[in-house]
């Protein structure tokens, strides 16, 4: 990942984090909130791999926790793991698959919400499992709606990496 790519990714995640805290967090649709930041992070992780996904998730989460004055590190923790796993998926089985962004968003939305639920529960904070489960389907739909434009924008900003650069560990045969 070049320096220019890093700057572009940072700007993308910064804008996404600010927009998430200031705009999208107020848009409640059927009990769910569209997660512009998560969608942007998934796009970055798919295009730039697991390390970029993990680092991006960590700092984006830190921004969200700072801006919303929440428990510092909580969102970072979940977004780091989300970015890493989606990055690994992009480096391996999801590589060059047109459905990869949509499948990733659907899966990571569920894991992200459940991950936050678990972390809140472990910390002894309010963890309304029923409300989270009820909002899962609307959240997936909202995030899927955001996926196409956000992924297209991210792809325009960060051109897909060369295969060799994307993963040095997995070798395709045949």
């Amino acid at each position: 990942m070049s320096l220019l790519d890093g700057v572009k990714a940072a700007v993308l995640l910064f804008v996404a984090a600010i927009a998430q805290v200031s705009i999208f967090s107020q848009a409640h649709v059927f009990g769910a909130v569209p997660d512009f930041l998560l969608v942007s992070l998934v796009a970055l992780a798919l295009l730039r791999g697991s390390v970029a996904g993990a680092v991006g998730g960590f700092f984006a989460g830190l921004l969200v926790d700072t801006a919303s004055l929440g428990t510092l590190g909580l969102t970072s923790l979940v977004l780091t793991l989300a970015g890493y796993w989606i990055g690994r998926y992009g480096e391996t089985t999801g590589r060059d698959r047109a459905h990869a962004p949509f499948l990733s968003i659907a899966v990571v939305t569920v894991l992200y919400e459940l991950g936050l639920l678990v972390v809140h529960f472990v910390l002894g904070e309010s963890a309304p499992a029923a409300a989270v489960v009820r909002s899962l389907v609307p959240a997936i739909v909202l995030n899927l709606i955001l996926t196409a434009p956000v992924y297209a924008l991210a792809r325009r900003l960060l051109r897909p990496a060369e295969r060799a650069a994307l993963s040095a560990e997995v070798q395709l045969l045949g």
Partner: protein
Amino acid sequence: MAPPSRSARAAVLASSVQRSKPTPYPSKARSALIRRTVVVVLVLVALTLVTISFRSPTAGALHDIQGTGSTALRPFQTAATRVAQPFRDAYDYVHGLANAKAENKKLKEQNAALRASALGAAAQLAKQPDYAKLLHLEQGPRFPNGYRAVNASVISFSGGAFTHSLTIAAGSSSGIRQSSPVLSGSGLVGIVSNVFPDTAIVTLISDPDTFVAARDLRTRVRGVVGTGAGGTLILDHVSKTEVVRQGDAIVTDGTHNARYPDLYPYGIPIGRVTSVGVADTASFLQVQVQPFANLGSLDAVGVLVPTHQRR
């Protein structure tokens, strides 16, 4: 004569070829190591931050850093909010229009022209309704004695099902302290749960951990307003022998004993009783309360600050 290619292939397959050892990929192994190291380090740092932040949520170096960071990010949040404001206004306008149509279809058909002009005017007036209400409240008779209001705009809501809080653009530098009551022009909103120099977090009365001593304004029956099943506000701990009726206004109960002052002064409107139920298995009346303040879309709130510092 057997095909030469087939016999040759069979010979190759049959022979025990000495395979070369798989080539180790030092660069690949290093890459995997780096990748795993990065994610483990980031997770550990995040866990450390969570631990420190959770153990000392209202004080400490990390709290100060977070406050400074929040202050630095505020201009960006304000800019983003302003950019989104026209879209939000348009959505509110359309949403309000759709609801009004459903409720008043016949009337609206008869008064289409009047409605258009009225809604246009309302849209103009709706730009700063919360500020106008706050100003009215502060100058009105309902405003509690011994307090002044620090008016602040709402800069972000905590989205999702986990928290019922919002962040306001005023903090300790404006005189706001921990546990200061917060109200909108319509009624009680919540309480300040964390204070930073220029920002503060307000935990809403809809939060499951928030309880407010309250009374029925008409019958003077006392109870505790909290969140019931399903997230609705309820007036709890009201004996079945007491009388509470639908439509009664609920206000804060205030302090009864100076040694144990209540966080909320007397008389702040909380909400209106929407239903009263009696169940054989329940110890108390089941009183549902609809809050006066529209907790879902607040643009500005007022924080009550004592005019004289208390010891």
